[in-house]
Structures are given as structure tokens and as C-alpha cells.
């Protein structure tokens, strides 16, 4: 009854480890993925920063652990991997801004396709192998046991409101907190069901047609105004956000990219199809209740201007999708193919549930991080004094840097806490879309481990110091 692990480094990459490094370098060095001074990019769906200058210094060889899920290497790997997966999808800009056609050609470049395949396999192994250790499905399963277990997981999830909504309502700035969550959704919802659609080609009997019915709903029955992504665009616009895919690429948290990537991961390679079914059931069966809470919270925060039809539609249709996924897909598949496929179905449900809970906490922590920007600015003063007095341990000696107005520090995260101190010039320290704090000479801020942030230089030049902390300040 053991689930077959499909995670391992392919033999060809073990024999030629330099192939991965060369492919990653060549793929990531595309101008599409270079640093940019634009924080929001609504016109160019192919321009998605990956900080290529960092990639050669990161170790993707040893798969990350559960404790490393939000580390910077994970963020970097997830950004690259999402670009790779989405090269299988078609994105076109809404208008034709200058240079779009060159971007289009680069994003779908056939030579780059070879590099994408080499890189994808390794990054999947790096990012998702920890799930094999974190989750076990053991025992002798029957269809009845599977059904009971799946329903219990969904009932447990649906019995309480996601803590993300409590974090939004309890935020110092609920509108910004809600906006942060919508931006996280945007990475997936604006191309909704694209990963799902990977599973509908081929020939696999009645289940194929049942899955197609769900896809039809997601795609609005061919009516563009009812397509789910169109409804989400309307929601984004109603709360003052850009609605173009990946306009807010820089603000996706590590876990948001990972959730998005997960569905591609289990759908790109069809050996994981049964795992996909478990994940599909869990998401469809829990989304109805989740969307009811989302609709209520958004309406409370933004009032009637929030176009919550996207969520209201899911409150309704996902009651059907949850039932359809179980009764028309999962259980008939088990009946047809027997208990061999059950551990993978169980694994898919458990894996997605785990990743969703990680993502919830990541958003909660980011909301608190943005809310606390003034507090962390003040905290800098005492920590900086303590560092100079030798009362705080640091990982390395002072790192002194000077950056200029035209050098953007695009969003990233650190695996440890840092104390940032401005020596001269002015820096705008960014903790989220439309959320930043100005730092002048003598000022600074604490940067928490794993929290997404970036910076722009407001003066011609800015000199600053960075201290990487250990011990009690490490996280």
C-alpha cells in the first residue's frame, strides 16, 4: 500500500549536475526576470522578477525541510517554478505596450523550453520532497474508509473560520490586510483552473467528463463575463487594485506561490493524477464555506463597493463541486481501479490541506509585519544600540552597502532577522503593496525572518548597514 514516490533527482542531472546550474542561469537571465523599478506591472504579463543574481548562490540540491518552507531559497525556487509552469499557459497582454511582442517571444521561447524542463524537475524535488517526510498514509484502505476520512477532513476545515479573516478584522488597517489577501489569491484566481485544465485531455472514461463539468463551471460556460477569473478581476478593480495577471507578482508570498505551484506540480506530471484528485476534492469541498467568510469579511471591510460576486458564486457552485468531486470522480475512480490509488488520493488531500494551513499563517504573519512597520522602526533604535554595545550577537560583521536611486531592491526575504540602519540618504522600506515606511539617516528598522520586503532609494544615493542577528533575535 505504499504510495510511489515520484520525487528524486533524475539520473541525467546526477550525472551532469552542471546541466542544472547552466540551465537555471540561462533561463533566469532572460530580461523578463530582471530586477525592475516598477512595483506593480499591469501591462506586461511576462515580466516577473526572480532576482537571477541570487540564484547561483542558493542550494537547491538538498530538498528543503518543513522548517525551511518560508526561507528565501524556497521563495526563489517558487518564483522560478511558477514561471516555468506558466509557460504552458497562454497569457496575452490586454493592450499592446511597447516591447510586448519581444517579451511574448522570450516567455515562450522554444530553446528556453529545454532549460525549463531541466530546471523544473530539480526545483520540484527541492520544494515538494518534504511532503513525503511530513505525511504518511498507512494501513489497509477501503473505499468506505477513504470516504469517511475525506469527509472528516472537510468537516474539520469547515467547522471554523480561517484565522486569516480574524487577522484581517483585527488588523490596524483592515482594508490593507484584505487587499494583501486578495493579492495572494490573484496569482491563482486570475488564471483560475489552468492547472485543472491540464488534467482534462486524453481518454480516461466517465471521470474525464465529470472533471470537464467542473472545468466548464470554472470557465463560465464560454461566457467571458461569467468566467471565474473575470469575476475576480471585477473584485480586484472594485477595491482599487489592478486586475491584470501578475501585476502584483512582487507581492506574492512564498506560500502563495507554493500553493499555486502545487496544483501545477500534481497536474503537470500525470503520475500524480490521483494525488491531484485528493487535493481537488479538499479544495472544492472547503471553498464554499471559505468563500462565504471571505464575502462577509470583504463586505464588512470595504462595504458594498466590494464586488464579492466571485466569492458568492463559489459559495453556491462549490457545494456542487465538492459533491461532484467526491461522488462523481474520487469514489467512481476508486471503484474502478481499486485500493491501489487510495494512498495517493489521501496524500493529495493531506498535502494540500497542509500547504493551505502554512499559507494561512504566512499571510497572517505578513499582515502583522506590515501593521508593525512603525513599531519595528522604533525597535531598531534599541537593537542598534545593543549591537554597537556588543549586547546582541550577530551572524557576521557589519555589512555596509550603498545604493542609488535607480537601483531597486525588489522584494525578497531573509532566513534570519536583520537590523537595518541608515547612514546617509533616504530609503523607502516596503512591506507590501502600498505599504512602506521612510527611513532617514540614523533611523532604521528590524526585518523579521521570512517576511517579504523590498526597498527603493528616495535620495540620489543611500548608504546603510545591515546586521544579521542570531540568538533571541534570530527570528
Amino acid at each position, binding site marked *: 500500500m505504499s504510495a510511489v514516490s515520484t520525487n528524486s533527482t533524475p539520473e541525467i542531472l546526477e550525472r551532469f549536475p552542471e546541466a542544472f546550474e547552466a540551465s537555471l542561469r540561462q533561463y533566469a537571465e532572460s530580461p523578463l526576470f530582471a530586477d525592475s523599478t516598477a512595483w506593480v506591472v499591469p501591462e506586461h504579463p511576462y515580466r516577473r522578477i526572480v532576482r537571477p543574481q541570487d540564484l547561483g548562490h542558493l542550494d537547491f540540491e538538498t530538498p528543503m525541510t518543513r522548517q525551511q518552507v518560508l526561507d528565501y531559497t524556497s521563495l526563489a525556487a517558487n518564483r522560478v517554478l511558477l514561471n516555468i509552469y506558466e509557460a504552458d499557459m497562454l497569457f496575452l497582454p490586454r493592450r499592446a505596450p511597447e516591447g510586448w511582442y519581444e517579451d511574448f517571444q522570450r516567455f515562450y521561447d522554444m530553446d528556453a523550453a529545454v532549460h525549463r524542463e531541466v530546471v523544473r524537475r530539480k526545483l520540484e524535488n527541492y520544494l515538494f520532497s518534504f511532503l513525503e517526510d511530513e505525511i504518511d498514509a498507512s494501513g489497509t484502505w477501503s473505499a*468506505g474508509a477513504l470516504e469517511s476520512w475525506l469527509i472528516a477532513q472537510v468537516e474539520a476545515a469547515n467547522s471554523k473560520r480561517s484565522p486569516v479573516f480574524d487577522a484581517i478584522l483585527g488588523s490596524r488597517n483592515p482594508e490593507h490586510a484584505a487587499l494583501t489577501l486578495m493579492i495572494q489569491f490573484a496569482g491563482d484566481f486570475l488564471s483560475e483552473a489552468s492547472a485543472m485544465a491540464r488534467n482534462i485531455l486524453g481518454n480516461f472514461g466517465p471521470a474525464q467528463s465529470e472533471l470537464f463539468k467542473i472545468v466548464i463551471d470554472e470557465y463560465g460556460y464560454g461566457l467571458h463575463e461569467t468566467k471565474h477569473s473575470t469575476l475576480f478581476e471585477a473584485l480586484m478593480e472594485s477595491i482599487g487594485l489592478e486586475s491584470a495577471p501578475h501585476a502584483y507578482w512582487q507581492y506574492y508570498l512564498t506560500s502563495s506561490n507554493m500553493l499555486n505551484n502545487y496544483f501545477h506540480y500534481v497536474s503537470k506530471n500525470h503520475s500524480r493524477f490521483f494525488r491531484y484528485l485528493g487535493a481537488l476534492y479538499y479544495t472544492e469541498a472547503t471553498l464554499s464555506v471559505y468563500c462565504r467568510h471571505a464575502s462577509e469579511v470583504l463586505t464588512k471591510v470595504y462595504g458594498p463597493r466590494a464586488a464579492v460576486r466571485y466569492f458568492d458564486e463559489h459559495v453556491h457552485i462549490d457545494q456542487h463541486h465538492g459533491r461532484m468531486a467526491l461522488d462523481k470522480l474520487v469514489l467512481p475512480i476508486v471503484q474502478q481501479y481499486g485500493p491501489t490509488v487510495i494512498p495517493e488520493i489521501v496524500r493529495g488531500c493531506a498535502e494540500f490541506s*497542509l500547504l493551505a494551513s502554512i499559507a494561512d499563517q504566512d499571510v497572517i504573519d505578513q499582515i502583522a509585519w506590515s501593521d508593525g512597520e512603525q513599531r519595528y522602526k522604533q525597535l531598531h533604535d534599541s537593537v542598534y544600540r545593543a549591537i554597537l554595545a556588543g549586547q546582541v550577537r550577530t551572524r557576521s560583521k557589519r555589512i555596509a552597502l550603498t545604493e542609488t536611486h535607480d537601483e531597486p531592491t525588489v522584494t525578497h526575504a531573509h532566513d534570519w532577522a536583520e537590523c537595518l540602519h541608515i547612514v546617509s540618504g533616504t530609503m523607502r522600506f516596503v512591506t507590501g503593496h502600498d505599504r512602506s515606511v521612510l527611513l532617514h539617516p540614523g533611523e532604521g528598522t528590524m526585518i523579521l525572518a521570512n517576511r517579504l520586503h523590498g526597498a527603493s532609494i528616495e535620495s540620489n544615493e543611500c548608504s546603510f548597514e545591515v546586521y544579521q542577528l542570531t540568538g533571541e533575535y534570530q527570528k
Partner: protein
Amino acid sequence: MIVVAFDLDHVNLLTVNEERYFVFEHQGRTCLVSDACPHRGGPLHLAVRACGEEKLICPWHETATRERRVAARNVPMVRVGSSATAVFDLPPDSAIWKRWTDGAVHGLASTRPRPRPGRAT
């Protein structure tokens, strides 16, 4: 069917309608298996591992049972981190009792680190 959730850091023995099951690490996988020795129903969670062999020695009659056979008498279970859910083909009003025991098998066979201080291993 009933689904029972428990924390592997605090529970390694379940009694369900007077049938006992214990958490057993077998070939790197966490299983929930019947506690009754196939010989006369002795408590396998108190067994010891036969030296150099993949067998458990029941404390009642010192009967050796292959670990593979013990692991095969299992209940469907899913572990996520230290959280577990197991499925029993029993009515919803079944009596369930969860507890921790410092059983010898657990200590010898387990490959999972147990953070609970002063317990097992």
C-alpha cells in the same frame, strides 16, 4: 465508520470498543496496528524486538511474530507531522480511549524522535 484524530506526541495506544491498537513504526512508516498477539491475544505494545531479527516477542508466551505480519494488521491512518487520523469500521457511538504508554515495542521499533520528555525511548 468513525474517524479518530490524535497527536502522536501524546498518544500511542488507542482502545476502541475494547480492541487495542498501538502506534508502530515499520520500515520508516507510522502505522496503527492491532495490539493483540496472533497467538493468544497478548499485548504486543509491550513486546520486545528479537535480537537481530525483525520479530516481536510477545510478553505472554514469548511467541515471536514477524514485524511484517504485525504491520499488516493495521488500520487506515494518515500522519501529517505529529497529527494523525485513523479510520475504524465501527459505529459512531463506539467508545474510544487514547493514551500514552511506555511500551517496549514503541521504544525499540520507533524511528521517529519523540519530543515528549520522560516518555518512551
